[in-house]
Structure formats: C-alpha cells, structure tokens
C-alpha cells in the first residue's frame, strides 16, 4: 500500500527490486487515510508507505505494525507552480501580490501537502488576503490537475509531480524554502498482516540503499 504521490518513483523502485531479488511485489496506490481504514479492517497488505507520519503512527498505536519497523523513507518538497510560463518568477512575490484569480492546494484535513501549504500561507501572512480564491484538491494529484488544465492560475503541489529528469519543464514555479513549513516526512511500516515478512524486510532494506535514495531525489524528494 503506497500513497499515490509516491506512486511513480515506487513503481521504478519495485521494478528494480524485483529484477535484483526475483521477488514479486504488488503495488496498491491510494490515499493514506483510506489505507488506514482498510488495514484496521483486515486488508492483506505487507507494508504501508504513507504520505505522512501520523497515519503510520495511528497504525502503530493500534498494534497493527511490527515494532521498530517505522522509518522515514522520503521527505516531500512543496512547490508553488503554475502551468503558465513566467507567471511565477522563482520566488514568492507573486503569492504575496495576490494578482491571480485562483489558488489551489490540497485539502489540509487529509493531505500533508495541504497542511504544509496552509503553513506557508500563514507564514507569509497572506491567509486573509487570499482565502476567497482558494480551491482545494482532495490530494496533491487533483491539485496538480486543477493547475495543469489551466482551471487554476497557481497552486501548491509536490515537486515530484512536476519534475522530470531532475528539472521542472512545464510552466513556472517557486520551490518553497524548507524554512516556511514543517518537513513533510513520509513514513513507512511493515504490517503484522504481512504474509511474507522476510521479503518485506528485504524491500525495506532496499529502500535505504543508495540506489533508491538517488532515485528518490531524482523524483523531487529530499533524502531522509
């Protein structure tokens, strides 16, 4: 079970892992909240790669996690992005100026990138001035779609969504400094339901390997 925002890198990682070990890994993408509900109700997942820290924590508290397996596998990076070129000048001025019709970010109630975005707005003191133009996506993927279809002028997404081959190719963006928001730590755990704990441990070990850490960076995350 993997949070959707980490879907792309995870697919590559798993492919590499399968090639190297001959083990087969089935991926299931989705929202972290739903996975928690499912795992609590007996879903047969071996490992859970959440988009945040609180969901794995909740599972741990519920005693569904093998003790000591929780670790941070990636740190998300928030980016302000517009699909229009030169709309954002590589800094936050645009955001503060407020000369845009709509601003999108993920729903802070359910998405960690949403919480981060809210924090950034607060720090820059533009919450009041902009809240009438907010549009919330259910998650970062939807937020990305709002922007990429030009329905929204700009918004906060995950760097991993707009990066390819290590650089942002479309539109204009501002990589939000880490100082403006709490790090988006993404945790993973091994679940007690796991049918093949050994392989799962191998995968977790592989996640910490250099190969994977580079991959993660390539996809716009910080290495943990």
């Amino acid at each position, binding site marked *: 079970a993997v949070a959707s925002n980490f879907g792309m890198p995870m697919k590559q990682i798993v492919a590499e892992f399968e090639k190297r070990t001959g083990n087969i890994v089935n991926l299931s993408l989705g929202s972290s909240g739903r996975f928690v509900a499912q795992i609590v109700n007996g879903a047969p997942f071996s490992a859970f790669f959440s988009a945040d820290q609180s969901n794995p924590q909740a599972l741990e508290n519920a005693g569904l996690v093998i003790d000591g397996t929780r670790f941070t596998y990636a740190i998300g990076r928030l980016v302000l992005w517009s699909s229009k070129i030169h709309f954002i000048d590589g800094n936050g001025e645009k955001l503060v100026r407020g000369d845009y019709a709509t601003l999108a970010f993920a729903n802070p*109630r359910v998405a960690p990138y949403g919480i981060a975005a809210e924090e950034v707005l607060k720090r820059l003191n533009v919450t009041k001035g902009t809240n009438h133009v907010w549009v919330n996506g259910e998650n970062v993927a939807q937020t990305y779609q709002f922007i990429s279809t030009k*329905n929204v002028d700009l918004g906060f997404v995950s760097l991993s969504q707009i990066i390819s081959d290590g650089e942002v190719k479309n539109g204009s963006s501002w990589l939000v400094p880490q100082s403006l928001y709490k790090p988006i730590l993404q945790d993973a755990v091994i679940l007690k339901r796991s049918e093949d704990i050994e392989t799962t441990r191998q995968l977790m070990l592989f996640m910490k390997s250099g190969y994977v850490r580079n991959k993660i960076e390539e996809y716009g995350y910080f290495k943990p």
Partner: protein
Amino acid sequence: MLTPENMAAIKLSLELAACVTLILLIFGTPLAWWLARSESSWTAPVGAVVALPLVLPPTVLGFYLLLAMGPSGYLGQLTATLGLGTLPFTFSGLVVGSCLYSLPFVVQPIQIAFQSIGNRPLEIAAILGASPIDRFITVALPLAKPGFLTATILGFAHTIGEFGVVLMIGGNIPNETRVVSVQMYDHVEALAYDQAHPLAAAMVLLSFLTLLVLYFYQKVRGRAKTNFGVSI
C-alpha cells in the same frame, strides 16, 4: 448534533440535487419521449450515448470534464465567449457535471414508462382534438407518472451521493461546491469517524423518510383505483 459546516454542506447538496433533478426532468423528458417513440434510426446511438457516462469512473469523467470546461477546453471557450467565465469550481459547474452523470437514471425510467403507454390513449386524445404537445402533457405525462417517480428518486439520490465528479470539478469550496458527499468523504479519509457517523446517519434517515413518504403516497393513490372487491 451536526456542526454548522455539515448543515451547510447538506443544504448545498439538497440544492444541487434539486437543481440537477429539475433540469434533468425538464430536458430528459422530451429526450425520453423521443427515444421511446421515434421511428428514427438515430434513437439507438443516442440511447447508447445517454448511458455512456456511466461506464467511466466518476473522477475520470470529472477529469475529462475539467479538461473540457477549462479555459483551453471547447466547452470552456464556449462559456468564456458567452461571458459566463469557466465552469469548474462553481455551483453551475457542479450542476452541469452532475447532470451529465445522472442523466441515464432519469431518462431511462421515463423512457420505459412512455414505451408502456401504448398508442391507444394518444389516439383517443388526438380524436378529441388534442395537438401533439397537448397530448404529451395531458395524456403521456400523467400516464407515465410511476416512471417519473422513479426517475426523480434515482436522479435525486444519485446526485446526493455522487462525489467523484463533484470532487474533481468542484474544488471543495465551502458554501459553493462543498456538498455533503464530499464532506462525508473527507471525514472518512481524515479518519474523523466521530464526524462521519452522525452525518451519514442524518443523510440516511432524511432520505429514508423522504422516500417513504413518496412511496406511500404512490401506493395509496394506486390502491384507490381498485376499490371493488379484492383482486387475486
């Protein structure tokens, strides 16, 4: 029991469902009539198209709608030139999206009801001097009443419950596009079950009572017709 936010979401949902159902009844009825009675060979393809939005998952449908209704989509350019702006993230946008998705649930029951009227009542009305539109209103509509009841129930309930399309083109804006289905979804996703349960219970109860009244009314009306002895 319900927070003001939840109440607002319920209100918005009811407004949306009422709008959508009304619009679908208005436009779906002539469409259903045409599908049911026209000899044209276009009825088969059009009938198929009506049911088509169903096979796409709502969010996917919503995504394509987002593309189409956005500033670079055909629909978006149309609405923009008409001076209506673009539709996503507005209540009107939700209405359009939900209409598309709930269309078959309104059209199909009405269509069956129209089909089962048969020619005779319409012939009688024609003889009595009723023009086609007059016949339609005074004969076809009343005789198709059970179909309309079903269409209203399915269309209304489906619009209330639907959230995929709404999520995609709505943008979760309070009082504008944050309907109760999205609200409930959020509660569940956020593992806020203490909020989700009462909301779900309220919706189910409300709907149950409404449906019960509707069905009961229909039953009583139907029974009044055969008051003579007891049929087998």
